[in-house]
């Protein structure tokens, strides 16, 4: 079986994000870059499938600047077999469609039975690339999968939905996007890290794709204002309700 996993390098979720001087992007200095956490579930799932059924090749693909190599190496250290980087310029802005097109340009040359992605990248939070890749390839797409079984050329996936679980069956190949809880991603072991160091990464230059959307500005969330004490005990309730309705407009 051949599995492709699309991955992105994102800032460590613990990084204190600073907005860049252009007010449209984030300042990349002092950022610790990691493999997107949802993509870790996708990579782990692919490796588990490989371990279970053997005779499987897992290829990870990323679109991003040169530094993305380290996210690919993390995936290889976890157990992926091959890695492809579609290299962009350091400061190039790509919208989700451009990323999906760049991925598809590579995917089209490859054989595959399954494509896995994280459900979203935790930096832009667009949740679009997986479904767009499916659309461009005219493949079925199941998002937010929390469980996956492969049998007789079919995939059965579970999705957690409001108040319950939905079970979906799809033919393969298909694009599936991973939700937290799909599995427990492994820590890359030293053996894998040493191996990843020796594996070449197939690097290609991105053919420029014009973004169709433009980021106008990026702002910090408003700083939280101090609270207000309206009174004490039961007598304060009517005033509290009034303020919640009229001032805070939350009820």
């Amino acid at each position, binding site marked *: 079986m051949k599995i492709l996993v699309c991955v992105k390098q994102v800032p460590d979720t613990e990084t204190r994000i600073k907005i860049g001087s252009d007010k449209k992007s984030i300042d990349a200095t002092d950022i610790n870059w990691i493999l997107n956490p949802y993509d870790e579930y996708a990579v782990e799932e692919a490796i588990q499938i490989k371990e279970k059924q053997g005779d499987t090749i897992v290829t990870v693909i990323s679109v991003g600047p040169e530094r993305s190599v*380290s996210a690919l*190496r993390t995936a290889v250290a976890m157990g992926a077999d091959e890695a492809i980087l579609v290299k962009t310029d350091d400061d190039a802005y790509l919208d989700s469609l451009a990323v999906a097109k760049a991925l598809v340009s590579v995917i089209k040359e490859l054989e595959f039975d399954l494509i896995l992605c994280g459900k979203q990248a935790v930096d832009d939070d667009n949740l679009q690339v997986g479904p767009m890749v499916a659309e461009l390839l005219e493949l079925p797409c199941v998002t937010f999968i929390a469980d996956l079984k492969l049998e007789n050329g079919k995939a059965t996936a579970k999705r957690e939905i409001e108040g319950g679980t939905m079970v979906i069956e799809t033919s393969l190949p298909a694009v599936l996007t991973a939700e937290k809880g799909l599995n427990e991603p492994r820590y*890359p*072991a030293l053996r894998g890290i*040493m191996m990843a160091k020796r594996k070449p990464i197939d690097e290609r230059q991105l053919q420029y794709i014009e973004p169709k959307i433009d980021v106008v500005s990026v702002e910090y969330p408003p700083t939280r204002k101090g609270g207000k004490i309206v009174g004490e005990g039961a007598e304060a309730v009517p005033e509290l309700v009034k303020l919640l309705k009229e001032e805070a407009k939350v009820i």
Partner: protein
Amino acid sequence: MSLNFDLPEEAVMIRDSVRDFAENVIRPKAKELDDQEKFSPEITKQMGELGLFGFCIPEELGGNGCKYLSYMVAVEELARVDGSQAATVAAHNSLGIGPIYFFGNDEQKQKYLPQLCTGEKLWGFGLTESEAGSDAGGTKTKAEKQNNDWIINGSKIFITNASSDACLGVTVQAITGSRADGKKEYTCFLVEQGTPGFEAKTMHEKMMWRASITSELFFENCRVPDANLLGKKGEGFHQMLDTLDRGRLSIAAMGLGCAQGAYELALKYAKERKQFGKPISTFQANAFKLADMATEIEAARYLLYRAAWLCDQGRNEYKKLSSMAKLYCSEVAHRCVDHAVQIHGGYGLMKEYDIERFYRDQRLLEIGEGTSEILRLVISRQIGCYEK
């Protein structure tokens, strides 16, 4: 231009992986294991799966063939979260596996290293005796040759990873006669658990490293075959010094990690804790303590990394730097845990707060593998203070 302070990619990836592991697997259990003075075979097994044993040993023998620098970074990350687990890893690599790899013959390496590198089993290094601490030359344990066997008599104390089911055996240093110059001759032997006449008892009631095994060893007419002699007869003293030179680097890494962990706990607490209507981190007395901690940690880090880098280059100067790094990192850790407890106020004295454990765990670092006093002696000799 070749001066470059970026860590190699290998070390960065190992740091990320070990940090995640330490945060998610070790941190939630550290307090309980410390309270109960319990060694955790499960965590040891998981650390083995991650590849934390047999760092610098070639892959053919079950190791990972990493640089010494990467090993230091991993120990630092473990100690940033918990001293006990860092101790198990540092002692097993530097003192358990190290001497067998560096001085053992092929047969000994093939026999022991593969299972020691997975962490299935641990190995101890028995040098210290009740009357031979800083003065390692005061060793009383003796080995006498009888036909093709050696008969060992004596005892050892404070030996890390050397008892319980987790331990496969120990390297023990013993007197095997006297040299031509009249001085005592030392030789090291590999003694497996279960050898008749050898008993290993776990020591309890420790103040620090409570989740790490410390053992007392007793040898009473313990018979081992000639094949268990490590290297050549009479090389024991040299083997011990060599092992300590490298081992000191891993204690330095524990000091650096301990300092970093304490600093992070203190900074976080100081920003959250409010007195006089403001976070206590905004009071200059506390802010300056934190500034000192951050500065000393940076200095300690580059001293240690440079020593490890020299060791990786095979340059002998590393020996001087390893003593300096061990001395400096463990004393920086001392100042950091002290400041950190002070910043925590009364809460820093309560077990509920991790800093309390760091405060205790730090203390060993100025004592084990050469006390600070002995290291100052070693360094002052190396820089020529006593030469006329």
